[in-house]
């Protein structure tokens, strides 16, 4: 049995957002992995075995976004001072919606416990998102509340409880597959996605015009999001080597940062386009672990 677990207004402080060239949003693998960690921690808390509660999919929305460099230590004599900024951090209000599945009857009964929502928020507050602290403001939202009863599905109820101006980050990795089949260079695609239509070369202009046609009249805003680091080979071969500044020998790209495309859409707009008849209601608002690895490798060519 799958059920939804919604945390509204989770304060995220100092989540790391620079993993490579594209700065802005936290890692989507991080968001999904947070759900996995939450399930594991809940199992432990409830005295279940680790696989009893399973994460199926996760939805990520945010508002009140600020990007900052974080605090910097004063210059002390005798300590090395970094030449560059160590990282960029972001603080925001996250709205996390996890679709979880109770795999055993014990787990199902545990999920039905009256204090489960409070417990989940407590467990969540002990976890972190991309190095950022999480501070849930209240317990997980009661999706069976009387005010929500007129709404048909669970997802509709959860969406109703999200602030209308919050931004939902939707999974658009399908576009990358399409572009790969069309033979477009992918890093260029990521860059072109963020530039104005008139500034895109014709091939990209046509590609994105087609995509925009599909979602018209919605304004489509695509951004590259970090998707995790993935191994490029089973084990570093040891043959391909490079030297660092000190002359140390390092393996050449054993792994690579991966990026995928996400669409950012306001909650009000998601609700307006809600289609109850669709089979797996509005599939790409959710991120799943099977779709996550489909990204663009920065160093695939090396």
């Amino acid at each position, binding site marked *: 049995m799958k059920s939804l677990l919604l945390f*509204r207004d989770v304060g995220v402080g100092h989540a790391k957002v*620079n993993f*490579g*060239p*594209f*700065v*802005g949003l936290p890692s989507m693998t991080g968001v999904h992995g947070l759900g996995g960690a939450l399930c594991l921690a809940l199992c432990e808390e409830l005295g279940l075995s680790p696989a009893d509660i399973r994460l199926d999919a996760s939805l990520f929305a945010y508002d*009140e*976004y*600020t*990007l900052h*460099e974080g605090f910097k230590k004063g*210059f*002390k*004599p005798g*300590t090395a001072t*970094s*030449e*560059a*900024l*160590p*990282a*960029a951090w972001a603080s925001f209000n996250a709205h996390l919606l996890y679709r979880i599945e109770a795999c055993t009857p014990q787990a199902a009964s545990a999920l039905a416990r009256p204090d489960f929502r409070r417990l989940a928020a407590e467990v969540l507050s002990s976890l972190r998102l991309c190095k950022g602290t999480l501070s849930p403001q209240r317990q997980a939202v009661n999706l069976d509340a009387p*005010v929500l009863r007129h*709404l048909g599905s669970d997802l*509709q109820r959860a969406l109703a409880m*999200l*602030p*209308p101006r919050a931004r939902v980050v939707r999974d658009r990795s399908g576009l990358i597959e399409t572009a790969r089949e069309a033979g477009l*260079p992918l*890093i*260029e695609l*990521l860059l072109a996605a*963020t*530039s*104005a239509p008139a*500034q*895109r*070369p014709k091939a990209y202009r046509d590609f994105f015009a087609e995509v925009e046609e599909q979602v*018209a*009249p*919605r*304004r489509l*805003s695509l*951004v*590259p999001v970090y998707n995790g680091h993935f191994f490029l080979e089973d084990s570093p071969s040891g043959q391909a080597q*490079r*030297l*660092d*500044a*000190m*002359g140390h020998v390092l393996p*050449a790209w054993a792994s690579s940062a991966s990026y995928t495309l996400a669409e*950012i859409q*306001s909650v*009000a707009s998601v*609700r*307006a386009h809600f289609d109850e008849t669709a089979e797996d209601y509005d599939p790409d608002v959710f991120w799943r672990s099977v779709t996550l690895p489909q990204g663009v490798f*920065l*160093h695939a060519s090396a």
Partner: protein
Amino acid sequence: MRLITFTEFSERLAGDSNGAVKALLLHDSDGEVLELKNCEELAQLCAALTVRTFPPAKRAIQQRILKAMPEGAAPGGSAWVAHFVEHESDFPFDRYQRKASGEVKLEPGTNLPLMTSDDNKMGTLLRNPYAALAVLDLRTPETTNALNDFLASRSTHPAKLSYERASGSFVLAKPRVPYVSSVTEADFLTVQTETFAVKNAALQPAMLLFISRVSFKGTVVRLHELYRCPELMEKVWACWSQNDVPQGTKAFLQELGGYRAQPVRGEPQVFVGPVPDHLCLSVMTPFALFKEVVRAKEALSAQLEAENEEVRAALEKKKVALTTELESAKAKRKALTKPSRVQREGFKEEQATIKSELERVSKALKVTPEEPSFRSFELLYGGSTPRNLAAELDKSLHTANVLLFVPVSRQHRVDKAEMRSHRAASLLQGRAYLPPKLPSCLNPGALDAPARQQRTKLFAELMAQRAAPLLELKFYWLTRSDELTGEAALSEKAATLGHLSPELQAFIAGAPSLEAPQRAELRRQLADTLTASASAALHSAYSDEYSANHFDELRACALRFVQAEGTY
């Protein structure tokens, strides 16, 4: 970018050392880059710049002059000492005491002028930088007021040096980039780090080395990046050793050049591609762009430029063709001695058509094509503390990207009051986003299924936009009522929603006491309001083409929206 050779540079240095160094180091001369052909030149440059920019160096040299000068006797020795004595009238240190023992000492309280105003003297020094370097004591820290004055003297340039008294270090801050849009690709590639700090004040003037740009084997880098190349530095040290520069100086400069710099703990050090053995110049900060991304940017720009060029060429060709056509039409007209009225009309018409076409083409030619630009943004360095704001320390993020949704009110240097009033005004006007041209699905004749589907989408989006304030209020109420019960909930409801009309109240908080038909009536009323509002938005957007086409569908959509969003 103009390349100047090392010979030219050293001549300039000897003639007008102030100007030459300043121009090169602080980028005063636009686009001039010093070209180094081999390691010998690099070694000489390092030595010269060290002598030139190092207050302790000058003091050491000058004290040596004083010590070497016997009472009443002309000093001998190397060329530069003789030179100082020749210009005794200009001699900067006339306030010195001689002790009975013959020792020469400065009067207490005398500040050493750290920049000699006489370029000739400095020029002479710089002609043999190795000899000057040989007598330096670089490791003695220098913290005099005169040093501060020296540093302040440089702040006429937008690059500022500020002194951090607490830690005794200096920070070099580059000027704030006025507009993000004016940041070019070159800025990202060459100026990677804008803020430096060193722990020892003595190192500070030499930090100026860090911003000089040189071209070495065709690669334009900052000088300190050359310092980081172990093989290259080995060769430089070898050159110095041949010229009797002591070991301590070399060790010191190694440290200075970041030769031993370690990566910041816990952070990945980013390299641009595999580093070639002979030229280890591409060590970059974590904010440097990946080589792949740089390449992708170049490819996109080149592609766009080529396309623009193609379009332009086609237009030019057409212009030429039209011009010749016009000429020939005119010639044809002239060839006829007595054209009939019909013929005259025909010619006139033909020429008018060609002319209008020509005008259109030349107008299109005048439009400057879009230049490719990639998103980036700047971030305040070290947070927005008052100190940092005062010091104007900031940092552009050298990213390819991307941040779209930093609320404007939270951005730096935004007039918040103006922001608020603008937001209030736009809320009041309730401008909706609609496609710039009338979508085909809104034409009266568009009755097929895809058009209907698209219309539904358009109307749904429009409803979400029109009802945005209402949704906000509903969300606020949902979160409040979640927490309150009983009397508190009732009084809160009266306070929050009391002033609203019944249909809005029912939309937001539900109307459990009413019967179903009454509730339906309330829904219908709200749907009517929304329909009118959306229709007005469509009218104002497409005043010419749109006249209540598909009004029924709009109304049905409003009703559906109210039903789905409302709390009934």
